[in-house]
């Protein structure tokens, strides 16, 4: 299996703080590679160096190499790079426009397409994202009126519409209810047939369910936790503590999700 993305000795820093240091990892084609780690460990920053979204923040200094198909991402035209490496954000962020326009937004940036070509792309992308059946009769509906889970699948369709090779997902289910969450997880497993998926999450159970390989990021460093006795070594003292903490964090997170569930029921109750 060939590696579509390779990271070599990557470091990211601001004037005040080192966010990532000496990160090296490789992402094989047509797999789900998951990066887990606590909040603030640098996961989001790491994947934003892959599509150079870090360029939007001039205070971030990036050194080291990220290779895409064996060439440094610096050598690509940034607009082309971002077309080929898509990103789905933590909070569903559809554009405040119709479902159709959301999905058609990306393709229209890159090519002059006929109406029927655009229709095809939108339909295919929505099917890939598992949303087509729910919106096919009302493509002019405002995307903001969809449910949270539907919005996130719309964002996936929007990212797929520019025909990327890699789809990066930055905690895509952290703001969704358990049912919407499991739909997205099923979707990831289907997507890896055609795409390479990079998942960022702090949900260790989710990582176990969907990943082909898991990278542990702690304090801006990759922890080689799978090597025997590595976690017992003194320099990995903190990572070991994190692994213990992580399981507690998952417990806390599932409680807050059930609180959200109650909240929704109350909202519906008052609506009836």
């Amino acid at each position, binding site marked *: 299996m060939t590696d579509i993305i390779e990271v070599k000795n990557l470091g990211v820093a601001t004037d005040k703080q080192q966010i990532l240091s000496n990160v090296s990892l490789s992402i094989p084609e047509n797999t789900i590679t998951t990066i887990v780690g606590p909040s603030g460990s640098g996961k989001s920053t790491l994947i934003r160096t892959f*599509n150079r*979204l870090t360029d*939007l923040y001039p205070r971030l200094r990036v050194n080291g190499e990220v290779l895409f198909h064996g060439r440094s991402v610096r050598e690509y035209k940034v*607009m*082309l*790079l*971002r*077309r080929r490496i*898509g*990103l789905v*954000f933590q*909070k569903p*962020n559809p*554009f*405040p*426009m119709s479902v159709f326009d959301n999905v058609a*937004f*990306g393709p*229209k*940036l*890159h090519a002059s397409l006929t109406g029927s070509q655009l229709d095809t792309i939108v339909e295919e992308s929505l099917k890939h994202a598992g949303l087509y059946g729910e919106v096919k009769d009302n493509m002019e509906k405002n995307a903001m009126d969809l449910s949270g889970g539907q919005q996130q699948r719309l*964002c996936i369709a*929007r*990212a797929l519409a*520019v025909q990327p090779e890699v789809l990066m997902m930055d905690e895509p289910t952290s703001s969704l209810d358990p049912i919407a969450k499991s739909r997205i997880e099923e979707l990831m497993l289907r997507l890896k047939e055609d795409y390479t998926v990079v998942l960022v999450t702090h949900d260790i159970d989710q990582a176990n369910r969907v990943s082909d390989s898991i990278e542990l990021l702690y304090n801006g460093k990759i922890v080689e936790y799978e090597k025997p006795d590595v976690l017992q070594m003194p320099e990995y003292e903190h990572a070991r503590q994190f692994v213990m903490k992580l399981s507690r964090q998952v417990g806390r997170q599932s409680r807050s999700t059930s609180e959200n569930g109650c909240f929704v029921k109350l909202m519906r109750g008052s609506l009836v």
Partner: protein
Amino acid sequence: MTESASKTADFRKLMDAKFERRVFSDLLVRIIGYCILGLMTGLLLAIVGYVAILGLGSISFKMFVTVGNTSTGGLANAIVGTWELVGMGLLLSLPVGVFGGLYLSEYSSRYTGGVLRLFVDILTSIPSIVLGLFGYLVLVIELNMGYSLLAGGLTLGVMMIPYIMRISEISYSNIPGETREAAFALGANSMQVSLRLLLVQARVGIMTAILLSISIAAGETAQLLYTALFNNGYTTGLTHEPVAYLTYVIWYSLNQPTPYAHALAYSAALVLVSSIFFLLLLSKYIGRGK
């Protein structure tokens, strides 16, 4: 009682003792608020009522369809001229304001943005008679436009720029950062993000800015005295042809000795105030969805 419990009891007493006074100061804030509300309502009713009573007593349908010279005839030329001048002002201020706001919100650095904002704010506070003098010296005389639609409209436009720029800047800034990131992540360049996303998303704010600036510009007099003068008929050319406008009729006709001239002034005031009122209501209505 333990020592800490007795301290707690003391503190409770202290806090309860101040309760009455706090109830009163709470009430005082509301009383002051109502007083100001009453004062403003009274002022507005007095002004609008005064204009309405005088205007409704003098206005006639004939005034809307006949041209006038501030002592005889109607207001048709002044009404048309006002909108011509405002339209000309928009031709200058709309592109400069909308793209200036975009620059301020999206692309300016702390330094360049700060300088531009300062200039724009200073521009807002320049007295309109000074702006008129500038328009007269530069546009009417130096660039040889004469008293004209172009000179008057451009002078109005300079005054309208700050309103459009600052209000549209706010509308762009209100668009969440994630929306921009999402577009960039799809491979958009800055121009595509600006034109296809930000401009479209900020349209309500921009519309409000336009309506507000129109209603302010339509009520200007001083800068037009020097640049548009007045015209007893309609204006069809861009240069060397003065333009009529409503505020001039109000100012000039009231100094005339005949009752009909006064009637013209009152009617012009009514037309102007009700148009501005309508525009402001429209901008509130458009902005309501946001």
